[in-house]
């Protein structure tokens, strides 16, 4: 008599450091790579997206104002916690993506956090400059975070891809609303559980699960979102999303037609895309 029935989970969203149900009350079943039932995930509505943006905006002054060193420590701590949950992530990536070498993927995702954690206090040195100017001024430029970034996470690579688009955004000091992979949301949900127990302040990362095509237009047109990453946007909607984003002059990270190889070494491009350059002219010799 040990035929225990496993508990079928119904997951929730991650907004402002809390785990609320979708305002709409909707959930949708998540299938594994073979079509079997895995769990129920919350199907976020536009109002959840609005709440998430409000939470991200609220968290922005604190996170962008934290010292770069502190942000690095916090991100490194995320990597530590991810390491602690390695087995669970391996299981979920295997189930969601149907891959054989999930261990390598999870390890790469952990390493990616560490890689970006190391960058936080080096960005200003690498992307900033002191500028030669024709006058008695000391002119210097420093990178500053753009603000609230809406990230449409990759549809296929549910963990490594997600980390590869999320980590650069928060490493640069932005706060974000992430729409997870529509059919493979479990690693994103577990990652939000990791973030909730890490030192990342509530609201810095907000994770929505649901239909990307339903949520993306609201985020793209939202006047309080400063940048939009189209990586996981359905191909047919990208032009419309770019047009909507143009209404409030958002930065838009375009996406290649096919998903990039996430195992490749990252570079600074994703961080640079969500940083603004501030240039200061300071009088000299007075």
């Amino acid at each position, binding site marked *: 008599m040990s035929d225990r029935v496993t508990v079928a989970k119904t997951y929730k969203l991650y907004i402002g450091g809390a785990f609320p149900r979708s305002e709409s009350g909707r959930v949708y079943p998540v299938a594994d790579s073979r079509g079997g039932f895995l769990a129920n995930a919350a199907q976020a509505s536009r109002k959840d997206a*609005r709440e998430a*943006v409000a939470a991200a*905006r609220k968290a922005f002054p604190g996170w962008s104002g934290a010292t770069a060193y502190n942000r690095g420590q916090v991100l490194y701590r995320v990597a530590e916690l991810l390491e602690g949950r390695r087995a669970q992530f391996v299981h979920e990536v295997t189930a969601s993506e149907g891959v054989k070498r999930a261990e390598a993927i999870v390890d790469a995702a952990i390493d990616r956090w560490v890689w970006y954690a190391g960058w936080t206090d080096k960005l200003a040195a690498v992307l900033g400059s002191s500028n030669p100017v024709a006058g008695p001024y000391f002119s210097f430029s420093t990178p500053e975070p753009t603000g609230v970034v809406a990230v449409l996470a990759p549809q296929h690579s549910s963990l490594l891809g997600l980390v590869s688009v999320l980590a650069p955004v928060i490493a640069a000091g932005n706060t974000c609303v992430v729409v997870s992979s529509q059919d493979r949301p479990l690693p994103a949900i577990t990652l939000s559980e990791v973030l909730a127990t890490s030192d990342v302040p509530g609201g810095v990362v907000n994770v929505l699960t649901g239909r990307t095509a339903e949520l993306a237009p*609201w985020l793209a*047109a*939202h*006047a*309080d*979102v400063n940048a939009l990453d189209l990586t996981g946007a359905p191909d047919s909607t990208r032009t419309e999303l770019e047009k*909507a984003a143009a*209404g409030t002059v958002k930065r838009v990270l375009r996406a290649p037609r096919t998903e990039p190889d996430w195992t490749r070494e990252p570079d600074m491009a994703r961080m640079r895309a969500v940083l603004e350059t501030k240039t200061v002219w300071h009088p000299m010799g007075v």
Partner: protein
Amino acid sequence: MTELSEVTRDDASLRRFLHGLPGVDQVGVEQRAAGLATRSIKKASKLWAIDTAISMVDLTTLEGADTPGKVRTLAAKARRPDAEYPEVPHVGAVCVYPDLVETAVTALVGSGVGVASVATAFPSGRSNRQVKIADTEMAVAAGASEIDMVIDRGAFLSGRYGQVYEEIVAVKAACGDAHLKVILETGELSTYDNVRRASWLALLAGGDFIKTSTGKVSPAATLPVTHVMLQAVRDWRDRTGQLRGVKPAGGIRNTKDAIRYLVAVHEVAGPEWLTPSLFRFGASSLLNDLLMQRRTQLEGHYSGPDYVTVD
């Protein structure tokens, strides 16, 4: 039923009347308020509610750090809340401290926006009657069209109703033509029964409005408290035929809250109270949220704080 003129004859009859008011069913009123708060207002009705709420806002600045410049900025916003949408109605009034009334009056000439001034040793009300009346007279002389007075909660809570009554009457006399709003400071009255008694006391003494709070004490305005006060003005209308107003103040920060109050006004008092002359919101940050929601309704996408004025 006792004649209302008999009620205020002396301290004892006042006490008998106020303590004879039916008690408030605490669970019932809270449940009713929570139930009404779930009502969903959408599309055209929502747009109407937003515009109505904007016209009911008493745009308030009551800080020690207020300057004439800040009041002028506020006045400009009161005249035209959203620069890009000139059809947005102006707010009900601007609410300031007495010494800044003159600045506000000058800045609002010809706009139709009233100037409200707090008076009577706001917010604590801890001073003697001469000072309170002088405070009121000064604000009225400077041109205030509305006076927000605080009641003496100490006297009220120790049962000296006659004293509170006389004070309101005296301030009302000092107001002249200006409207008098009586602040009950419900956060300090501790029970709904007290709120009901204080409401009736203020109405008996001639207050044109009863107002929940100063905004300096927490909890400030809540829905159940406003319910009790709306019941009081409704019952007052039933007994005397006069319409008196209600003003919740403090803690109303977003459109959703404001619409809940409007629903309560409609359901508890009645539709004739849905006008700025009988219902006001004492708020400062509420206006920006109303404007953002209004834009969301018209533009089809969510707006943000970068698109409204910072004040």
